[in-house]
């Protein structure tokens, strides 16, 4: 699915990613954890093509193609999706218009016919239920005045509507109440299948109780310093990051 090789990135002259290696196969769910400022969101942003970053080294192969050469919209059309840590509000553009434009842009790219308003409405109504948002949300401007949790559910709504192949979820669990956390986790679980992959960024073990992660990676100072199975998340919950930091400082510098 995606092969990330020795990825280095800078922003405003400052190195944030310092050689990330990660391979995700179809159907896998990888979790990335790491302290604040480690570079998790930067990693997600670089993969989705946000401007402003300078890629100084490394490569990313996505479905056999050079991901870094694609524009953000082409990446999305190729099935990459980012659920933002801080989804921004877009006053004046209503959610329905936005989602329909997005869905049709992707369909067009793939050579499918565009959906008309009626068909689209049918799709969206069904998906809204899955994330437990009521119909009024699609008539409101994108994320405008949405509560923190509503914004996160709106991200997941977009994911299940746009049906990406690789979903990067950046702290989608932060800010969700207990019920919403379960709803969102169920949404992700229903959406999982053997062709779809996930990179989930989180600080907490909670959401992982509902999901079956294949791998847990710890990102520190822009590098993956430790990988393991889901028990690693439990260790972290208990002990924090200091022991990982101690271990990694003993590693030879790359």
């Amino acid at each position, binding site marked *: 699915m995606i092969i990330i090789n020795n990825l280095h990135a800078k922003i405003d002259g400052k190195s944030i990613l310092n050689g990330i290696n990660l391979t995700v196969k179809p159907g896998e769910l990888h979790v990335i954890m790491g302290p604040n400022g480690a570079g998790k969101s930067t990693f997600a942003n670089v993969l989705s*093509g946000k401007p402003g970053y300078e890629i100084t080294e490394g490569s990313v192969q996505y479905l056999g193609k050079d991901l870094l050469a694609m524009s953000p919209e082409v990446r999305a059309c190729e099935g990459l999706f980012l659920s933002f840590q801080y*989804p921004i509000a*877009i*006053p*004046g553009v209503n959610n329905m218009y*936005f989602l329909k*434009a997005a869905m049709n842009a992707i369909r067009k*790219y793939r050579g499918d016919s565009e959906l008309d308003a009626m068909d689209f409405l049918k799709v969206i109504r069904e998906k809204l239920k899955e994330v437990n948002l009521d119909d009024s949300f699609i008539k409101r401007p994108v994320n405008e005045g949405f509560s923190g949790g509503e914004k996160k559910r709106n991200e997941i709504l*977009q994911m299940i509507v746009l049906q990406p192949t690789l979903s990067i979820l950046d702290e989608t669990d932060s800010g969700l109440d207990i019920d919403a956390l379960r709803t969102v986790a169920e949404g992700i679980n229903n959406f999982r299948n053997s062709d779809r992959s996930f990179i989930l960024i989180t600080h907490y073990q909670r959401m992982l109780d509902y999901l079956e992660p294949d791998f847990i990676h710890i990102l520190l100072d822009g590098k993956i310093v430790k990988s393991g199975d889901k028990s690693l998340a439990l260790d972290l919950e208990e002990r924090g990051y200091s022991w990982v930091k101690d271990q990694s400082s003993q590693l030879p510098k790359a």
Partner: protein
Amino acid sequence: MTSFNASRQQAREFLLDNGFPTNKDEAWRFTNIQPIINQEYDYGFHPPSNSSNKNLLLSDAYQINIHSGEYNNPDQFSEFSLTSGCTIERLVSSENNSTVKALFSTIVPAHQDAFTALNTALFQDGLIFIVPDNIRLDKPVHFHLENEIANHPTNLNFRFLIILGKNSKCTIVLSNEGVGESSFSNFVTEIKLSDNSQLDYHVIQFGGENDHQITNTGISLEDNARVHAQYFSTGGKTIRNDLTVNLSGQGAECDIRGLILGKNNGLIDNHSLINHIAPNCTSNEIFKGVLTDTSHGVFDGLVTVFPNAQLTSANQKNQTLLLSKDATTNSNPRLQINADNVKCSHGSTTGELDMDAVFYLQSRGISEEMAKFMLIQGFALEILDSISNESVKNILQQAIEKYLIDIKRTGS
């Protein structure tokens, strides 16, 4: 009152004494009127054209075309009066009408400024439109001026006197579409809203490449009267609107909205004065601007709360989106509060397109170009939210879309 001739004479003297403003005058600091006044004009109307532009046809409205002289057709007026119950007449033949006698040149006095004086001195004609007490018009009344291409630049000074009786209700659209060769239209509109009346008033200006449009409008509101005034201006060499709203009766409300879409080297300038004279009145004012190329937008708004006007609520906002490095804006929202029990706010923001928002849309598969289109459109469309007449709303939505396609084509 004084006769038309006497008013014309006084206005002419005012103009001769004071001359035209220069950029040293505070209210004209950013408005270069040299291209307007250093030009010789034919006075009057262009002949009607067959190739009339249909951009501004409202479906289901009483339409009165000023340019083609239809306003000059008494049959049309009597038919209109019969179906609507309202009165409409030519101003030049209504000098002895008691309403004209009482109100002409009182809501927008000739000495207010040079262009009002110019209009008062030289007006070729005008219309008086009266909605009697308790009449509630369902269809909008649409006055349309189209400046045709003529061999010579033409100056038209036209006036409206509009009176809404008690408990009456009406939607008026005043549109001006310039396609002309340095044409210059100079309108004065005086509006009186009696107790409990309600007016939706739309000014729609589609400027031609070289034309100049100036409007001076005064709206005077009595007890519990309400006005929703909406200005939409795009294109043109110079568009300048002056609006004075007098909230003179208790409980009166005004909702003033404006959208300017500037391109090329056009100037669009909106000046407004909102006077809270009586207590318990509400005013909301928002002007938005989208500017590209080397266009220039000006907003100058003063809200004054008079000493008696307790329990005033006033909001004023100006927001501008600059799409090019060379587009400029001057924003000057002002509040002058002379009463103590009031709720007022004002603010102004100017910015470029939010590139994080562009990226957000791109990350969902939408092209950069389309993302920008959607964001500018969203910014502009907000101003149309409160328009109740669908046909007016449609025309403005289309105009926004046309502007966006135009500027995309020219690559700005």
